[in-house]
């Protein structure tokens, strides 16, 4: 995060929890406990951290998808261009349109074809898509999927392989031209070539849109991100320029995590 960059998204004292159906919020399990951080405009921010540390929850809170889960609750604020997305007058639908989310598990719409999946955001909203064919092709090309699927654009989106579905979902999100794109492990099912293409895409998009990417692939974070944040048990441990995090992190917990030291002490 270069100091000069404007903050596109500012998260302040963000708390998120999950309550079991029918139980009071006081018994809820906490997923985020007071996270505050800034996401610089037109930069790539990587979120890293162990499984269950709250990375997905943080993403979902930013575009108001968290509340969709039954029993889920949010506290604190998320400001997009200075406006609290949890404000009373804000329409969550509008927020989700401006802040796209690529889910951890690929989820193409099963009743739609590959082509219609790319256009889903427009079609299902009843918006006309001028030059739909061109849009489909250019989006599928950007995620390096075109050559693989150009002969089966009319097959169901779910007929693609896991890695292809993942790229289809990125294309679908990208087609809507979001201002902020949240990507939850976008390359988890991709081979090295497709991964390289997606990383190249992130590089292209950098300086055009604000990107937050959750990844378990530390090398990927090191390659693509301007800044990297380490989450641990629902807390933000540190958020620094990527070069700092991967050469000289401040917090020993970050150090232990990224160097692969977990639980074994020298004494034993």
């Amino acid at each position, binding site marked *: 995060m270069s100091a000069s960059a404007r903050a596109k998204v500012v998260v302040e004292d963000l708390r998120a929890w999950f309550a079991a159906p029918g139980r009071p919020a006081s018994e809820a399990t906490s997923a985020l406990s007071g996270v505050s951080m800034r996401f610089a405009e037109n930069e790539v921010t990587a979120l890293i951290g162990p499984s269950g540390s709250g990375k997905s929850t943080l993403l979902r809170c930013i575009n108001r998808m968290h509340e969709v889960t039954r029993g889920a609750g949010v506290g604190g604020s998320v400001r997009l261009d200075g406006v609290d997305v949890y404000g009373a007058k804000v329409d969550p639908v509008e927020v989700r349109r401006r802040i796209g989310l690529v889910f951890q598990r690929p989820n193409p719409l099963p009743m739609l074809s590959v082509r219609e999946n790319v256009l889903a955001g427009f079609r299902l909203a009843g918006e006309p898509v001028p030059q739909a064919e061109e849009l489909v092709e250019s989006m599928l090309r950007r995620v390096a999927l075109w050559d693989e699927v150009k002969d089966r654009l009319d097959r169901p989106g779910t007929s693609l392989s896991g890695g292809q579905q993942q790229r289809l979902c990125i294309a679908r999100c990208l087609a809507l031209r979001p201002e902020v794109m949240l990507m939850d492990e976008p390359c988890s099912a991709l081979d090295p070539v497709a991964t390289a293409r997606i990383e190249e895409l992130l590089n292209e998009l950098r300086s055009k849109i604000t990107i937050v990417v959750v990844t378990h692939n530390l090398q990927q974070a*090191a390659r693509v991100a301007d800044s990297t944040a380490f989450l641990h048990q629902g807390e933000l441990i540190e958020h620094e320029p990527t070069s700092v995090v991967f050469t000289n*992190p401040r917090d020993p917990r970050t150090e232990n995590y990224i160097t692969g030291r977990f*639980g074994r002490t020298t004494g034993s």
Partner: protein
Amino acid sequence: MPLLHTDSLYENELSRLRESVLLMGAKAEELVSRAMRAFSEHDAGAAKRLVALDEAIDALEVAIDDLALLVLARRQPVASDLRFIAAVLKMVTDLERVGDLGVNICERVAELGASPSFPDTHAELEQMGRDSVAMLHDALDAFVRGDEALAREVLVRDARIDEQYARIFQSLVARMTESAGTVDRATRLQSLARYLERIADHATNIAEMVVFMVKGKDVRHSQRGTRGG
């Protein structure tokens, strides 16, 4: 470092690397200190035999390079691990150079043979040898223990070696101007002093890498002034 790597194979590779560097350092130190003993004892034969030690050092350099590259390729180390590997790769070239300088000392000692010496310069060279070897020793010690304070102390000591070198150089120049017959011998002693000064420089480099490894801070340029080199 309070925690071990969860992957014990990785932990093994890193400790093997650490031990190899240590072994290499010990051999370089041994080479230099035995070369200096041969110098004190005017023992040309011993000096010639020491050259074999350098071959072991060279072999270790290759082995450590290989292992370090393997770890880089296999583990993509980050943070302190990355700094450790980077430090190792640099230290190894320093140690290799120390080995070469040790060999150079042996060669000069062999050439000097048992010819009469200048006792005061001789004593000063012996002192300088002990100091340089001690710096090397402490720098390696700091590496093993991750001891930043010790490493910084080594950095400071380099200035004294430089002074010793200047003094020896001056006195040898003086002798050569006194009598042309001493030139042959004096230039050899001068070379010896320069080798020792270079060894101290390499020890300084190693100490700088130790500071980088421990603190992630590059002190190579900020320390220039105190090094006076």
